[in-house]
């Protein structure tokens, strides 16, 4: 056994996983409902015989879940209320309740087996009414006067004296389209035509669902080779067939078709919601402009990413740090934009060198002014010098050296950002004003 691994509780992911499990469970019954936060309920009336009767169905479900790495408690009972309580509170050998056995099955269970709110359970506990059986004996009118109608209705549901509706999950089929050719073809036009049509259909389907895809996969079914999948990843959920095609086309051009393609498949992945495109009449001009700019930038990013690969397109953003090399941060352009940081409290060069370049600097006193800088193989005469601006390291990270920065103008009118490390006394150039 390995060491325990501790993960943060993530209710959103958990709910998604439960939803996926509900889809999975439709193999046992067409009526599967999610029971937040940790349960599924299946209406297996009429299904059990397909699996060899109720006891075998119960075992099958348990075993299949176990194979998925999920520990489970599975019960089958005449009412849903009864099954809920029995699954959670009864020992394994009592988790199969015959018709007519609900009352006996729930009587020894604790009161919370009736799906009661925690406050009601603690009220009951204070009165010594710990078990369902204690509650079955109470005069109903006196109980209702004290605990409201919920207790009675839960009892009735467990005993089958009241109906309970089930809200089954619907299966949302994945968005995918397929076309098979008459026979293997190497005709690029035919393949392209098919892909464009499928893409259009896919986008129509996405639009119907108010959704867009961040991943579009095109699969070429080749006659003598394994299928070839071409993935397109975009920065925001998209469903514009023309745009998607313009990004896909170059990739398709380079595809190796082998002896022929028998069919194509288009699938939309990473589907997310997209709001209806709004007419700009309803928003202010400025906002619309900004939105348009953003959309165009996204399109540019997508085009670049499609050409060079997603991980090669990066975005620079200001970050709040006195340390120049930390005042700009790079991230993948396909990731969401980081929030805007305030500008630096002082003028900063338009171009910061990735690595400070050592330079020979002549200054008569440590605090300046700088007279001459040798940089890039040339000697620069300095005509103006602003500084020093002293920037200390972010001591809580790695200790570094405090530096004195000078903005200096060369005789040719170029401005350089030079710095001296107070620790080593060495000079270097860190940036240039364009």
């Amino acid at each position, binding site marked *: 056994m390995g060491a325990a691994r501790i993960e943060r509780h993530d209710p959103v992911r958990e709910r998604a996983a439960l939803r996926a499990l509900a889809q999975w469970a439709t193999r046992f019954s067409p009526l599967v409902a999610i029971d937040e936060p940790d349960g599924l309920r299946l209406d297996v009336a009429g299904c059990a015989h397909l699996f060899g009767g109720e006891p075998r169905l119960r075992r099958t479900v348990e075993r299949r879940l176990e194979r998925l790495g999920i520990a489970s408690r599975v019960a089958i009972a005449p009412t849903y209320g009864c099954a809920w309580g029995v699954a959670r509170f009864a020992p394994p050998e009592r988790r199969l309740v015959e018709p007519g056995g609900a009352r006996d099955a729930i009587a020894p269970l604790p009161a919370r087996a009736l799906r009661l709110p925690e406050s009601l359970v603690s009220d009951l506990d204070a*009165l010594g*009414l710990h078990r369902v059986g204690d509650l079955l004996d109470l*005069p109903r*009118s006196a109980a209702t006067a*004290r605990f409201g109608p919920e207790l009675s209705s839960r009892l009735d549901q467990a005993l089958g004296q009241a109906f309970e509706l089930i809200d089954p999950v619907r299966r949302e089929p994945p968005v995918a389209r397929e076309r098979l050719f008459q026979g293997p073809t190497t005709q690029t036009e035919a393949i392209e035509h098919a892909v464009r049509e499928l893409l259009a259909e896919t986008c129509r389907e996405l639009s119907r669902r108010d959704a867009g895809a961040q991943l579009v996969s095109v699969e070429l079914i080749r006659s003598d080779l394994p299928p070839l999948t071409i993935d397109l990843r975009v920065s925001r959920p998209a469903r514009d067939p023309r745009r998607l095609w313009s990004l896909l086309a170059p990739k398709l051009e380079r595809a190796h078709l082998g002896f022929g393609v028998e069919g194509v498949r288009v699938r939309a992945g990473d589907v997310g919601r997209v709001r209806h495109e709004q007419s700009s009449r309803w928003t202010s001009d400025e906002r619309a402009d900004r939105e348009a700019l953003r959309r165009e930038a996204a399109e540019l990013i997508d085009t670049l990413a499609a050409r060079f690969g997603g991980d090669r397109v990066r975005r620079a953003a200001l970050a*709040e740090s006195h340390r120049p090399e930390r005042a700009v941060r790079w991230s993948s352009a396909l990731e969401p934009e980081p929030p805007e940081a305030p500008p630096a409290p002082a003028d900063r060069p338009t171009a910061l060198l990735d690595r400070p370049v050592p330079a020979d600097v002549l200054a008569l006193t440590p605090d300046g002014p700088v007279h001459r800088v040798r940089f890039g193989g040339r000697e620069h005469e300095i005509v103006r010098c*602003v500084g020093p*601006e002293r920037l200390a390291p*972010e*001591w809580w990270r790695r200790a570094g050296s405090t530096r004195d920065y000078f903005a200096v103008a060369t005789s040719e009118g170029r401005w350089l950002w030079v710095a001296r490390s107070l620790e080593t006394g060495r000079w270097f150039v860190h940036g240039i004003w364009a």
Partner: protein
Amino acid sequence: MPEEPQKLRPHPARRRDASLARFTPALVGYAELSVTSNFTFLRGASHPEEFVERAAAFGHRAVAITDTNSLAGVVRAHVAAKNAGLPLVVGCRLALQDAPDVLVYPADRSAYARLCNLLTLGKRRAPKGECRLDLHDLIDHSEGLLAILCPSRTLDERALEIARGLRRVFDDDRLSIAAFRGYGPSDAERLAQVAALAEHANVPLVATNHALYHHPDRRPLQDVLTCIRHGLTLDSAGYRLEANAERCLKPSEEMARLFAEHPAAVARSAQIAERASGFSLDELRYEYPDEPCPPGLSPDAYLRRESLAGAERRYRGAVPERVRAALEHELALIEELGYAPYFLTCYDIVSFARSRGILCQGRGGAANSAVCFCLGLTEVDPARAHLLFERFVSRERREPPDIDIDFEHERREEVLQYVYERYGRERAALTAEVISYRGRSSVREVGKAFGLTPDAIDALAKNLDHWGEAISPKRAGELGLDPRGGVIRQVIERSRELIGFPRHLSQHVGGFVITRGRLCDLVPIENAAMEDRTVIEWDKDDIDAMGMLKVDCLGLGMLTCIRKSFELLEGVGVRGERGDRLSIAEVMGEEQDDDAVYAMVSRADTVGVFQIESRAQMTMLPRLRPREFYDLVIEVAIVRPGPLQGGMVHPYLRRREGSEPVDYPSPEVREVLERTLGVPLFQEQAMQLAIVAAGFTPDEADGLRSSMAAWRKRGNAMVQYGRRLVSGMIAGGYEREFAERCFEQLKGFSEYGFPESHAASFAILVYVSAWLKRHHPAAFAAALLNSQPMGFYQPAQIVRDAREHGVPVRAVDVNASGWDCSLEPGEELLGDRQADHDPATWGAGGPALRLGMRLVKGLPEDDARRIALAVRERGRFRTIESLWRASGVSTRALRCLARADAFGSMGLDRRRALWQIKPLRDESLPLFESVDATSEEGLQRLPEAPAAERVLHDYGAVGLSLRAHPVSFIRDRLERRGVVRAEALRDERAQPHRSKAAVAGMVLCRQRPGTASGVVFITIEDETGIANLVVWRDVFERYRRVARLSNLLLVRGTVERAGEVIHVHARHLEALDAEIPTLVSLGRDFR
């Protein structure tokens, strides 16, 4: 009594013998005039005295302390500056609402008063901790102030306008403009702009460095403070942090270099400092208020008249000669030193309390005074005690006397409001208490700044002791955090720096400062968090250093308890001689030598008795066996860190038991030490010894005492006095060995020793409470319960103790209980009456104790009183519903009472009462009205509660049970594991000395005495009694979690017997909490 919390950082005034730094002025005349100390909370990163010391080391001409809108740090700086021989410039940075900051410095006494008034104005109109001032407020108070304008970020027309306006107000060249070079992005440009502004406004520039810390090494801490202030982490604080470490004090030459283009600006700083030194805090004259004195009578004459009249009253006309002489001696000294108004102020306050029936009593040094006794300030009879007035008032010390008065803790507020009313808020205010970062709070705040997860922070903080332990690599390592890892190491270092930093000003528990003139001419006054309270900016040490009078009005729970006992007794017909309510004086006067009381005390049967109820006291009592009042004085004093450390206890006990001879080298020494069998136990004895044996004057003896108090911090002065003491004694014909032994003993208890007078004051309360416990156990227990929280024990132990003394105790019941616990007619006695030898009979035949509804958790007092009133008016109720309708209380209150099982008289147990309450609705719902709530339907269907559940619910709802002890329910299981009952430990044959034993019980309290080198004492209780555990440091560390947190412990160890004192030295601890899952936290930890 809890130890005075250890000062995290001693006030400079307490470091009496701080070596004087040799101060040599630098060649360049410079003084830093913009200094933000850590009294500008969460901004400044150094203590005021650190700035002073560093400025002195740099040879600055002076140093200013300019905290934002505050003078809270100036006294410390003043004292430190005097020690260093450096002039201090008192000042303040005014953060104005409508203008840039202005630094101001009073140039004379009246300007200082105006500054204090200005700050008081700004603070009184703002919520606590804030100050609201406008430019025109400053202008109104500007006379005599020197000012430095700190120019705003943008230097526009408005900036020039303000500079020109201020120049007109601060005429006579009193205004300057601050120039600053902090290695910012464009310093030179900015400096040129500021210089231009100064020139346009015709105001001189002054060089400053706007210091936030004294040394660049404090930059990290300053960054952390910035994060704490903004609630951000270091990574997210961004540009809110300073870019570099330049905001420190800099050498004069460095300042001259930085301002090479403006040499006049550097020189200007020294000139301003020179001009500001026209005022020093030494000039503040404190004057006593003159109200308490009737017109036409001098304070001295009035004090004489009242003292003599008091003496006549105290001694009923027969004033002993000794007392008369003491009075004359004291009155002469008081007159000489001009302290009469102080005594009269205290007399006035105490007289007010008496007139309202509030019990009060002076403590501490004041009890050394016959005048105080005669005025009724103290209760220690000078005819019986050995007073040493010089301990209290000393001619040489030139410090005002310090009278601390205890009042009933529940009624102290009345006294405080009286003082405000009588002297007015301009003249009376509470002293501040500087709340500082301690081990836990500092690691919490620093951890957050470093972005540690809440879990990690919590674990780090909780793993520290309550005692203010600082975070250390060891503690962090215990949690699996690598203390050498970057972040954790940084957290540890920064936390340790932060400890001792002030975090806010709070109010002192009861220290009043009262003046004749306006108090806000001396020190700014601000609002306190509590309504109707005002507080000055200085704390107790500041006040002492400034020689200001303070009256401590403290709250003492035992006084409340004694008053309530007397009240209860009056109600059942136990009264004083004249048929009125009993008084402390009466109990003391008539029966001070009641053998039954001493017999009880000697058996350590002292639960609830003042002072001697603690574990340490209880182990001492059977050995000391007090027989008379003076033994109680010794008992109170001896179980203290001082005597324990000084090694005085064992010689004293041996001599008392007669196993060691008592000898005195001379009759004079005999006179001093006879009452403590030749062993010096009190501060006064040390002083007297110095007088009679080494030829000290009384004032010199007081100097010896105060040097003893500082011995542990810096021993120099003490060594000097010690040498004089020893040589003086040898010259007086004593053996060197005796002299040195005396000195060693004095050193030992110097720091923690009690003055005898204080012990005597407390011993009075010990005697009175013991007397009540012995003769009126029911009333005493009721009064204790009604005065909670106080003392060492929880209601469960008080009730248990009362029952063990034969007091019938009756459960809380709506038809019988009031809010308070009360006395009811007891049971008829069938057999013997009380027997002295059998404590279980002492309460028999007396009144019964009815528990009050105040014990019911969650029940509002108002609801309880309404129920009691309804019962009084309408008689007993038969159903809950009728009680509910008649009293009008909420169903929530009824549920609290039901959980407390308080409906027994209606034949309803806890479950059935809850069942009956359940259908009642606070808001009337007509639909539900039809439900017959009183119907008994269903009642029989409710299952009976098992016995253990009843007991646990009793504990949960009332904190105690009259039915059984929770441990009794797991006794079977415990027996199978070889655990014995606590009472079995008492049987010496079954459990001889050094035998092995296992006991189990609920934890009542944990204590770690400061002296016991890491030993923790844990007291546990089972159904047969208590067992005292000693947990040595290594065992404690091994079972740290269990030992600190468990409520139910199983302990295996060795029985240690010393006479009647039995301890179990733990070897192995086990938590049993899981055995009784719902057992709630009942113990009281580490007091």
